[in-house]
């Protein structure tokens, strides 16, 4: 009787050790993705990626963010998270400077910090950028050039002359167009203040000054909407090519009518997956190196460079080209 009890106890103990070992071997990580604002299409799309990652890996990965586009609220949310101490946080900062202290605190507590769209963030281990901005601008321009038959007058708009990314896109485009002797740049970098109405008025003025204009490249997401409307009103859908950075939810209407020929952007769903994957690799003690394949489309051969702080910047080639043929695939 006594011996039997002992055996059972021993068996239970063995089982307990075994189960513990199993749990240890498959430690589940908690990775929290913090976005700029919840409830908008862009970040809903990112959440699809986070959920897909959680389902595939079994890790406890989820997305959160302030209900309002507000740097202070995002800061507060991350402060609360740091207190809870998840294994890693993946942040899309509203204002990188505002978050520096809290991200420093998180790193000091041993939380792994990954960021996205913040190549000036100091307190991060890896910042993930979908692509190199100059290359993105060149790619948009290449599509424009092809549409124009590599010749004719063209121009490029920017939201403001002070916007770093817009200027990088525009410069990338201008450099690309120089490859073709027939492409003639006119009145470059008109400012549209991210206002479709301004883009419309500038486009009309350009059309008036150069009735033979063949192409427009936009930078602000509203640029192609304004240009597209001017083209549509003038009845020039088939004569003028329009490409630019935008989203299907903003430019879709004009892509359908043909006033806008194509747009480019990056897919937040893929960015969400990559952020979580990188977080997991860091937790597993792995390093991300130049040329590595992260297993997500557009991030098969990433470039890794030194960031402004201790961390690194990972750049993919995650361009998404949308035109009439694949417009329906993107719902944001």
């Amino acid at each position: 009787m006594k011996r039997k009890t002992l055996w059972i106890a021993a068996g239970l103990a063995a089982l307990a050790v075994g189960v513990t070992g199993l749990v240890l071997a498959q430690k589940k990580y908690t990775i929290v993705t913090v976005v700029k604002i919840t409830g908008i299409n862009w970040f809903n799309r990112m959440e699809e990626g986070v959920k897909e990652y959680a389902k595939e890996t079994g890790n406890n990965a989820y997305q959160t963010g302030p209900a309002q586009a507000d740097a202070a609220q995002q800061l507060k949310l991350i402060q609360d998270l740091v207190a809870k101490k998840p294994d890693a946080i993946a942040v899309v900062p509203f204002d990188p400077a505002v978050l520096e202290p809290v991200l420093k605190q998180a790193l000091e507590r041993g939380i792994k910090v990954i960021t996205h769209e913040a190549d000036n963030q100091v307190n991060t281990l890896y910042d993930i950028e979908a692509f190199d901005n100059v290359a993105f601008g060149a790619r948009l321009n290449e599509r424009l050039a092809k549409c124009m038959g590599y010749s004719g007058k063209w121009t490029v708009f920017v939201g403001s002359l002070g916007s770093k990314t817009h200027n990088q896109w525009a410069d990338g485009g201008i450099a690309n167009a120089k490859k073709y002797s027939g492409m003639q740049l006119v009145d470059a970098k008109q400012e549209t203040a991210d206002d479709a109405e301004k883009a419309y008025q500038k486009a009309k003025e350009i059309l008036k000054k150069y009735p033979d204009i063949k192409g427009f490249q936009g930078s602000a997401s509203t640029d192609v909407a304004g240009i597209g409307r001017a083209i549509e009103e003038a009845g020039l859908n088939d004569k003028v090519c329009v490409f630019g950075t935008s989203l299907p939810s903003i430019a879709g209407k004009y892509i359908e009518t043909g006033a806008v020929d194509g747009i480019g952007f990056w897919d937040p769903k893929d960015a969400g997956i990559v952020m979580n994957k990188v977080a997991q690799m860091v937790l597993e003690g792995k390093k991300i190196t130049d040329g590595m394949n992260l297993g997500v489309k557009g991030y098969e051969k990433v470039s890794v460079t030194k960031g402004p702080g201790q961390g690194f910047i990972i750049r993919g080639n995650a361009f998404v080209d949308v035109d009439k043929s694949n417009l329906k695939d993107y719902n944001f």
Partner: protein
Amino acid sequence: MALTSPPQTRSPFSVWQALVQRPELLTLTLVLLLALVIGLINPVFFTPQSLFDLLRASTVTGIFALGVLLVLAAGGIDVSFTAIAAFCLYTTTLLVLNVAPDAPFALPLLISIGFGLLLGLLNGLIVHRFRAPSLIVTIGTQYMIRGFLLAFIGTKHIMNIPEGMDRFGRWSLFQFTTAEGARASLPVAFLLLVAVALLTWWILSRTLLGRAIYAVGGSVPIAERLGIPVRSVYLFVFGYAGLLAGLGGLVHASLNQLANPFDLVGTELDVIAAVVLGGARVTGGTGTVIGTLLGVVLVVMINNSLILIGVPSTWQKVVIGAIILLASGVFSRRKLA
């Protein structure tokens, strides 16, 4: 010094006097001069299409400017109207989309005007109640209204505006095809500016209220002694400016085919510059509808012709500033005389 002026200066003196009495003549001169200069540099400017573009681009700015005119005439200033306009256009679009997406244009129009009127009245109430400078009050309400809009109503661009607004925005008054095969058109929305201009003119020059507005703008203590209800005048001018902001905002979204909550704020100085260049004084008591409309044409023409005359984008703001400075310099000489 001779006590009598020499006879040969009489002729320029009377021209000068005419300009003092009718400042809108000065604005008209500036408009014509500028048009001539632009047209000489690029003859494309002298086409009916350009005229249409100018009138179209003046529509929203003009509606805003007429509201600002009343506030300036009453001795106040309003910088919150662009925030009110953005609030009205976005909230109205959302509301109509969710409640009655197929409603005719009149519904969003009334809602937007209603919101604008309420927010404008709030401005008037604060300005009068706390005897606060209207510049400070409206800077405050501009931030508040815009902040509330972006924090609680929404930040997403709405491309699919309600059917009624969409149709109104595309509705043309005139349309023709240019020699190059491009279409040019003037939207019906322009008629709203005409209607608002007539209404404002009627209020200012044909009603007791108009006299009261100028009186309050001239001197509040004297107006009070004359028995003018200053509070009502303040409520009226700010309410009117708010109402027109609501109207202008909705027209902006309809023409733009897009409800963007980030639009308009930042353009208020262009509008105020237009009103001042139209002859209204920032110190109050003056200003006419025709002058304001000419001021709007002047500012819109400067803004929308810089590409035509080949000013590089980095220099455009410098040129706009220089022309406004030049014009206001001419105006201040008028005041000295």
